[in-house]
């Protein structure tokens, strides 16, 4: 080791804490190397005061020979030169020697230490075996130690250590080494803690005095920096940085307070005018020059900041946090500029720009120096700010020094440049060799226009590239815009335009109106300089309509367009086509008439509402709308043309706010339509889907100039428009304008508005598409006649009003035109009366009234029509009468052989309502056509009739039911019933004579008794007739109604009587007890001719016997039939033949029980030929008539008997040869005991009394 001589402390990394060595120097020298090697090998935990986190540190030390002047004098606070530990080395093992010299030496050493108040000492006793052997009088090993301990370490026994055999490779030696090193480290740390703590306390005390007058920041700065140095020395860079940050914050606070008026005297020195602006120096760890200035209190603000930052930078680089440097650098630069401003320090104009520029580059170069390229590129985001800042500063320097104008800098500019360069001083030695040093760059840039441009472009492009690389597109564009401004000043508009357009499109797409306006103005300037007329005019149009500009500016741009338009009109220069959206907006289109559907030749007006964006009124030479004509007629007839057209015939256009204040006008709504794909053969669904009909609008690329369509396309379209709506000489005043077009309607078809074109001199403003689609339709219509009932239903039988409507279409009704209605026999008769017809225009207004004359002849009714122009409507009403056909005829029977209908009138029965209807076809000859028009009128018969035959024994009654099926009320009188042959019978009326009112859906019943003299005919043909008149209209005449019907098998053949008696031994019928049912069948009539033909009879010896089947059925389950419930009876066919049958039945309930049903059938043997169908039919008829007889249930029960085939299936009888049952006609069997009841008492042994009341 070499003893430390008095030389200036070099503040470098090589600094280590100082440890002094006293005693045996030779001994120490021999141990120095292993000691210096082993000391930092193991880390030691450093516990610290004030709750700071403990740290593991590797200790190193600078061992120097002990000298008295190394000890700090009173008041000297230097920490770097402070000896933290004093060690005394001895290898004395001899008591004599110890006593003789060593002890004395140690005492002197101790007293010196005590004098300087240093308590950090250690005595090391080195023992070696070799030395011991030489001595004869060897004391026990510990004795020297003990002696030293008792002499010096009366309290601190740990201040004395033994190091045994340090130079030998033995385990004992190693052990001893390690315990020694541990002790040494512990003591060193103790010393650090104690001394640094004391130092920090002192420092704090000093800081607390900062409000006292005479306090100097620079002094304090030096003290705290000392601490930072120590931390740096201990490699605690974090702590060192904290010291600088504290200083930084303290200083900042002073400046702020000063700015707020709370001045500190010492700050005055910082406010001296700035004379030097040579930027940051980061290449040296410590800028001694500046440090000395600080020490001397002669520092300027910029210098202090520079020094502070350079220290922070150094530490951050040690800490491997270079990106924090860039971030802090930007803050520092901003802050310095602000602080100088705040402190009102006088600075030469541009000097700060120089300083900032130099500093930026210095920081960047420093960072580049400690990182590789890949790292730099990955961390562009940290450095880009500095790049942009430096380019900004260079630009302002350039404009200050006249380096950016087209002309060379003048003398004033040059003077300024010289002043600025003077402030840079001379280049620092460490950068002198570098060609790219910030100093050289700035000097070069300020020296000539060309060099400036080169440097400026370099920086700007670098910044832009970096912004692009990290995705900060907006920032990149802003830099680009500033570059464009530079180019503009240099007169290079071509290059500027690209950058400006780029920026403009970004602003437009994001809708920032002020930047748009500003940038657009610059673009316009570019275009003007570049002589790009069309672009210039388009931009001017946009600017003229820009609300962000003043009226004067807008008028200027508008005038530019107008000037161009008028200047060029004489020459044959090509027309300039511009987009209309900048010039005016189409707000609304209104059709009149509103439906936008007119007939050929009609007037259709189109009102255009155009919102002019120009600041002044503009005279348009022509305003034209291109129309696309197509022949196809959409299904839109009646409705307005386009889908978006609303009912009122007004189309509103989505309003774009002026000049892109709203960035994206909302995309149009989806127009979705359902789509089905069916296979052509069987119409099954192959696929279904949804189709978007306006994909072309929705998927259009947005962003870039949507307003500018390629002019070529527009021009072609203008020429193409064969059909044009035009108006000339329109003056568009600012704001809303209303322009009226008359739309062409010469040909039928669909007209679609395609584009709008406004012409001002040589300039055309074109709106290439009109969306939503606007259409109108022109149609041509054939004349048309409709006849329809006035009411819901036409009723037959009395006059009904019928409405005639003639739509004239393209035909005009001339004088003498008439409708010819051909009547046939059953035709409704048109009442020949004079009435008037109304003539309506196509819009439904009544325009006239004409007299109508109706002339009826045998075959033809002629209606003469009033005069009417085309596309008008004639309406009139006539009365028609349809006679009710006598019987509801059956269509089947009325078919003729050739299949044609017999009558013109055709009746049909509606299944649902049961109203019979008659369809009448009328053939009308119209004047406009050679063909007849067939029109069908349907009349409904207001009544429905039913008849039935009722019998009492042999007496017969006929009942007719008339039901009013219409909605009206009717009066009915003069009912009568007549037999068609009318000879033998007398029909005695049992009905009221007065007129009767029948309401809707009501029925009236009429009954006649049939009386006859001789024989009752087998078949009765009856005619029922009645007169009716609608009750609503008083005094109207009565109209006849007839109903014809036929009755068969009228006479009664059998009478049947039943009797129920209690069992012979019982008095009464009881529930659960058997009773006797006796059925007595009596033949009432003699054999008649008709019956003979009946196959059910068997003949033997001229006597006919009929086989009858009886059946007892109890539907209400009151009775249980015991034994046979049915049986066959053979009866002789002669009057008064009686046959009686007995059966046993048991009542199931008590009370007055109705008799069970007893039914009688003809029993036909199996060989019998089937009955004719007509017969069964008539049976059916009677069946349905005699519903009241409660026989349907009986028939049904027969039918349910599987083996027996009944009436309905006549043709099936041919199959199996089974016996057949055939019911009797309604009047043929009289049930004498019908409706009778028998009293049944409850069973005797029943506990429960059941009473059944029916």
């Amino acid at each position, binding site marked *: 080791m070499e003893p430390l001589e008095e030389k200036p402390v070099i503040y470098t990394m090589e600094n280590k804490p100082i440890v002094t060595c006293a005693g045996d120097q030779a001994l120490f020298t021999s141990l120095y190397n292993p000691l210096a090697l082993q000391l930092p090998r193991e880390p030691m935990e450093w516990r610290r005061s004030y709750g700071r986190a403990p740290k593991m540190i590797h200790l190193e030390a600078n061992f120097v020979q002990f000298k008295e002047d190394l000890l700090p004098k009173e008041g000297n606070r230097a920490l770097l030169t402070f000896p933290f530990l004093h060690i005394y080395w001895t290898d004395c093992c001899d008591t004599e020697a110890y006593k003789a010299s060593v002890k004395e030496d140690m005492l002197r050493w101790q007293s010196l230490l005590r004098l300087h108040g240093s308590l950090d000492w250690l005595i090391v006793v080195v023992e070696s075996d070799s030395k011991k052997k030489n001595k004869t009088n060897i004391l026990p090993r510990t004795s020297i130690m003990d002696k030293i301990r008792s002499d010096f370490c009366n309290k601190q026994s740990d201040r004395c250590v033994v190091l045994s055999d340090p130079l030998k490779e033995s385990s004992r030696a190693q052990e001893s080494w390690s315990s020694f090193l541990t002790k040494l480290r512990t003591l060193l740390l103790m010393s650090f803690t104690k001394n640094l703590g004391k130092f920090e306390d002192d420092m704090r005390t000093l800081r607390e005095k900062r409000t006292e007058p005479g306090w100097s920041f620079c002094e304090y700065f030096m003290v705290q920096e000392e601490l930072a140095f120590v931390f740096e020395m201990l490699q605690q860079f974090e702590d060192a940085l904290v010291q600088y940050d504290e200083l930084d914050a303290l200083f900042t606070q002073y400046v702020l307070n000063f700015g707020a008026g709370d001045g500190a005297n010492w700050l005055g020195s910082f406010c001296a005018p700035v004379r030097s602006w040579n930027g940051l120096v980061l290449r040296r760890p410590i800028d001694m020059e500046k440090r000395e200035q600080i020490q001397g209190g002669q520092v300027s603000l910029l210098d202090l900041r520079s020094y502070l930052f350079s220290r922070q930078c150094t530490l951050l680089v040690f800490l491997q946090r270079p990106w924090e440097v860039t971030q802090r650098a930007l803050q520092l630069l901003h802050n310095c500029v602000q602080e100088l401003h705040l402190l009102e320090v006088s600075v030469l104009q541009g000097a700060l720009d120089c300083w900032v520029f130099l500093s930026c580059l210095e920081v960047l170069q420093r960072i580049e120096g400690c990182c590789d390229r890949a790292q730099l590129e990955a961390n562009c985001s940290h450095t880009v700010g500095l790049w942009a800042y430096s380019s900004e500063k260079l630009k302002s320097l350039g404009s200050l020094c006249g380096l950016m104008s087209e002309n060379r800098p003048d003398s004033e500019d040059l003077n300024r440049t010289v002043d600025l360069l003077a402030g840079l001083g001379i280049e620092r030695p460490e950068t002198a060799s570098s060609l790219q040093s910030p100093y050289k760059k700035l000097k070069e840039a300020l020296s000539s226009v060309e060099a400036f441009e080169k440097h400026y472009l370099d920086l700007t492009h670098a910044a832009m590239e970096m912004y692009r690389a990290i995705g*900060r597109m907006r920032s990149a564009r802003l830099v680009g815009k500033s570059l464009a401004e530079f180019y503009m000043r240099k007169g290079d508009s071509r290059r500027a335009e690209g950058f400006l357009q780029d920026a403009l499109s970004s602003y437009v797409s994001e809708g*920032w109106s002020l930047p748009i306006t500003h940038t657009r103005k610059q673009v316009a300037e570019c275009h003007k300089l570049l002589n790009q007329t069309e672009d210039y005019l388009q931009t001017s149009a946009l600017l003229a309509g820009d609300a962000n500009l003043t009226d004067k500016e807008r008028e200027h741009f508008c005038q530019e367009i107008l000037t161009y338009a008028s200047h060029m009109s004489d020459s044959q220069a090509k027309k300039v086509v511009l987009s209309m959206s900048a010039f005016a907006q189409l707000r609304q289109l209104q059709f009149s008439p509103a439906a936008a559907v007119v007939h050929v030749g009609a007037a259709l007006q189109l009102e255009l509402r155009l919102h002019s964006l120009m600041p002044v009124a503009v005279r348009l030479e022509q305003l034209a709308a291109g129309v696309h004509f197509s022949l196809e007629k959409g299904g839109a007839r009646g409705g307005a043309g386009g889908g978006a057209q609303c009912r009122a015939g007004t189309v509103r256009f989505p309003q774009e706010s002026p000049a892109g204040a709203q960035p994206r006008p909302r995309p149009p709504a989806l127009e979705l339509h359902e789509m089905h794909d069916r296979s052509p053969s069987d119409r099954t669904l192959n696929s279904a889907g949804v189709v978007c009909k306006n994909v072309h609008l929705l998927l259009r690329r947005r962003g870039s100039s949507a307003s500018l369509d390629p002019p070529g396309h527009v021009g072609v379209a203008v020429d193409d428009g064969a059909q044009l709506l035009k108006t000339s000489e329109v003056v568009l005043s600012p704001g809303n304008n209303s322009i009226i077009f008359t739309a062409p309607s010469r040909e039928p078809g669909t007209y679609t508005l395609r584009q709008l074109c406004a012409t001002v001199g040589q300039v055309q403003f074109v709106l290439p598409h009109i969306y939503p689609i606007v259409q109108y339709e022109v149609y041509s219509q054939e004349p048309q006649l409709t006849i329809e009932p006035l009411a819901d239903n036409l009723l037959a039988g009395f006059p009904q009003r019928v409405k005639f409507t003639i739509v004239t279409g393209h035909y005009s009704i001339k004088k003498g035109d008439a409708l010819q209605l051909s009547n046939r026999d059953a035709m409704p008769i048109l009442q020949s009366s004079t009435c008037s017809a109304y003539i309506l225009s196509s819009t439904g207004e009544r325009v006239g009234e004409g007299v109508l004359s109706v002339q009826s002849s045998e075959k033809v009714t002629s209606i003469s029509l009033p005069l009417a122009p085309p596309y008008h409507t004639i309406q009139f009403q006539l009365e028609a009468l349809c006679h009710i056909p006598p019987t509801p005829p059956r269509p089947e029977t009325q078919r003729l052989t050739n299949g044609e209908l017999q009558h013109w009138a055709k009746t049909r029965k509606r299944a649902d309502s049961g109203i019979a209807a008659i369809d009448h076809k009328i053939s009308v000859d119209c004047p406009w056509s050679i063909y007849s028009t067939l029109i069908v009128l349907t009349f409904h018969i207001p009544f429905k009739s039913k008849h039935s035959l009722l019998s009492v024994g042999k007496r017969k009654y006929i009942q007719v039911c008339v039901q009013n099926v219409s909605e009206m009320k009717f009066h009915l009188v003069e009912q009568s019933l007549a037999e068609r042959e009318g000879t033998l019978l007398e029909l005695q009326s049992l009905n009221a004579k007065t007129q009767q009112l029948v309401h809707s859906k009501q029925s009236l019943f009429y009954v006649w008794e049939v009386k006859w003299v001789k024989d009752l005919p087998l078949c009765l043909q009856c005619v029922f007739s009645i007169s009716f008149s609608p009750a609503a209209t008083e005094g109207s005449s009565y109209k006849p109604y007839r109903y014809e019907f036929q009755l068969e098998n009228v006479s009664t053949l059998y009478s049947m009587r039943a009797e129920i008696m209690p069992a012979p031994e019982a008095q009464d019928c009881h529930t659960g007890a058997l009773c006797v049912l006796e059925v007595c069948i009596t033949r009432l009539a003699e054999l008649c001719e008709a019956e003979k033909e009946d196959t059910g009879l068997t003949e033997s010896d001229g006597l006919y016997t009929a086989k009858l089947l009886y059946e007892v059925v109890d539907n209400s389950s009151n009775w249980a039939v015991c034994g046979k419930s049915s049986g066959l009876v053979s009866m002789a066919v002669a009057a008064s033949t009686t046959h009686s049958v007995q059966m046993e039945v048991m009542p199931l309930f008590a009370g007055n029980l109705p008799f069970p049903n007893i039914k009688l059938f003809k029993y036909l043997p199996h060989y019998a030929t089937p009955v004719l169908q007509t017969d069964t039919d008539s049976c059916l008829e009677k069946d349905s008539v005699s519903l009241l007889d409660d026989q349907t249930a009986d028939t049904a029960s027969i039918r349910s008997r599987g083996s027996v085939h009944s009436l309905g299936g006549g043709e099936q009888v041919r199959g199996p040869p089974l016996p057949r049952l055939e019911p009797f006609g309604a009047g043929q069997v009289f049930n004498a005991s019908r409706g009778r009841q028998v009293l049944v008492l409850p069973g005797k042994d029943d506990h429960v009394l059941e009473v059944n009341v029916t």
Partner: protein
Amino acid sequence: MAVCIAVIAKENYPLYIRSVPTENELKFHYTVHTSLDVVEEKISAVGKALVDQRELYLGLLYPTEDYKVYGYVTNSKVKFVIVVDSSNTSLRDNEIRSMFRKLHNSFTDVMCNPFYNPGDPIQSKAFDSMVSAMMVQAC
């Protein structure tokens, strides 16, 4: 004391922007527009790192020589930008935060107005006066 307050829609067009003094309006528009770069950067960084921990305040977006630009983003990605003068050192982070909170509350009121069409420029008087108050005095 803010010099410029802007509300920017999710699609990055301004819903509201006001600045004092008015002669520098254009410059503020450029500044606010450029700050969107940093806002987007921060949003995407937050999106990656902490999805559930939603800190709406984005902090200092970037300082310039004269101004400090602070950002805030609502959950619906509406951005608030406040520009303050660099020389105004009395404003701390907390004050900026509270300004944003106020702004957000007022903006929520605007959105709650049934007659306000989301996406339209804000024309509410209440919002305007609140912004004016923030521009005049430190909050």
